[in-house]
């Protein structure tokens, strides 16, 4: 059952990804991207990462993609249907390179599964499930976030601040 759902989501995700790359208009690409994000969120659920799935949909697909859409509209690119994919030899070359890279990754990933990761998969999954059961979906993530990874968390705060400053500076109109 899970496998079937996974495959379903996977197909949608990959399809969406391809849509991003070949989409004729920016908006089309963006919509394909949202489809991908949504199906990836579905896969998160399959991996019992419910909170992340929610965040994925809310923040990623919701906020960030809307920001993209907003910019596309702002720059009035929504009606730009000229294909800006570089077809031809360049496309072919890129495909070859990407294909070979994919091959290399495939080779690397094929061996995973039992020995691909360190530690015992079942035990780890059980431990996560236990924590989730104990602290709730949000609490399971929040706990390490504010203890072990508090530094990183604060760092993200700073990161966002910088991003805001940067965005403000850059997007200001020329004077």
């Amino acid at each position, binding site marked *: 059952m899970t496998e079937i759902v996974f495959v379903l989501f996977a197909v949608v995700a990959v399809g969406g990804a391809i849509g991003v790359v070949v989409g004729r208009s920016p908006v089309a690409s963006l919509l394909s991207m949202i489809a991908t994000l949504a199906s990836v969120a579905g896969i998160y659920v399959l991996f019992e990462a419910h909170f992340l799935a929610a965040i994925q949909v809310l923040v990623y697909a919701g906020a960030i993609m809307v920001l993209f859409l907003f910019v596309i509209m702002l720059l009035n690119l929504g009606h730009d249907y000229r294909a800006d994919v570089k077809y031809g030899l360049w496309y072919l070359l890129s495909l070859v390179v990407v294909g070979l890279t994919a091959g290399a990754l495939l080779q690397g990933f094929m061996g995973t599964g039992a020995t691909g990761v*360190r530690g015992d998969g079942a035990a780890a999954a059980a431990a996560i499930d236990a924590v989730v059961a104990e602290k709730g979906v949000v609490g399971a993530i929040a706990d390490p976030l504010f203890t072990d990874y508090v530094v990183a968390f604060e760092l*993200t705060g700073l990161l966002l601040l910088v991003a805001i400053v940067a965005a403000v500076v850059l997007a200001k109109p020329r004077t």
Partner: protein
Amino acid sequence: MVLDYTSSFHYVLALLPELVLSAWGMGVLLVGVSREQEGGGGQELGWLALAGLAIAAVANGWLYSGVTEEGATAMIAVDRFRLFANWVFIIGAALSIVISLPYVARQRLQAGEYYSLILFAAVGMMFMASARDLMVIFLGLELMSIGVYALAGFNRRDRRSAEAGLKYFLLGAFASAFLLFGIALIYGAAGSSNIHAIAVAVQDGTIATALMGPGVALLAIGFAFKVSAVPFHMWTPDVYEGAPTPVTAFMAASVKTAAFVAFLRVFLVGLDGLYAQWWSILWWIAAITMVAGNVVALVQSSVKRMLAYSSIAHGGYLLVALVAANDTAAAGLLFYLLVYTVMTVGVFGVVIAVGNQTEENSRIEDYAGFGWRQPVLGVLMTVFLLSLAGFPGTAGFIAKYHLLLGAAQSSLWVLSVILVLTTVVSYWYYLRVAWYMWMKEAPETAGAGGRITTPFATRVVLVVSVAVILLAGVFPGAALDLAAGSIDGLRDLVAGSGVAAGP
């Protein structure tokens, strides 16, 4: 004092320089915003930022003076390696700010944002140096990068600046994705993102090898991008050329330093046990970088762009230290970064002076006869160039020699030979600037540029930089000991292993 992190307050202590700088950056930002000026002036903000750096330096000094940590496994490292790197960042940022002062004023940039972004980027660099966790390294790198993306595109009036910002951003984000993928794979393979834990896992043999290969490769690619190693360097010349010159200096010096420091910690501490797997990759990258960087620099007609390629080449030299992967090389890397920071910022400082605080006059022809018109700046530039070329008597030589020493210790003879031969190539383009400055007469039309004015502060700083370069070139002992001391114990993390040591 020994930090053990059981108390959160100890995190505050351990991160004192970063925190000071972050807070100060916000302060500068606030002061800047509150003054509501668009361009013009803003020098006092620069001085304010410098004061922040000074305080951070004091904090760093306090940490350096004997604060240690318990266990040496926590997310934030309190070791001399990091603190030494912090010095370098502070120096790099401070020098960049100093050479920015007149530039920002002349170009009417938003000083508050400008200086605070430099400080924030410096914080990101410090995190990269201090992080003992891949994720924190990534976040620090992003903090730094986002700040620098913005700085590169800071001059909205200049389309070259915008173009530089865009290219840097797109490719930087692209490369971050590879880095992140690498982190993910290593995390999976090692079961942790903690460098110490990874090192232990590698040591134990409990690491999962399947993902490790691609993981290490992608990680190396991510760092290689940031240190602009060939073939991940393509952005460098464009961005360096387009960005406002002080930002270029900051990028060339500090961003590279930060990336190298993190690179070193990850590969020489965390992945040291896998040396056999990654050395050859880095070997080739180092070799290609040295060759390509130097060779392409030969055909540049813009000094800024030439210096960009030269910085690529320097990245190649530094990579040799990583390939050598021994304590000497690591110390050499630190020392080189320190020296490199000073001389790079210095050379860009002169470039700014020649450009008269604009982006003009950056073609090599514009330097014709410059030395005789501005003897002091000319001599400074010459020393900077000689130091970049690694000429005896300058710190650049000691630094390069240190790298060679490390390489030799690991018997990397071929790489050493490539290093020295490409150094010869580099002589040509460094000397070319010198020959334009001293051996060519200024064209008749040069009068248009008028007098070049350089603020007193900039001059003082440049002179001090040169003095430091010469002093460190002649009496490098103390600095060398400092660098060597910063490596002490860094790679002994994995208790009782001993594999970390070089031959």
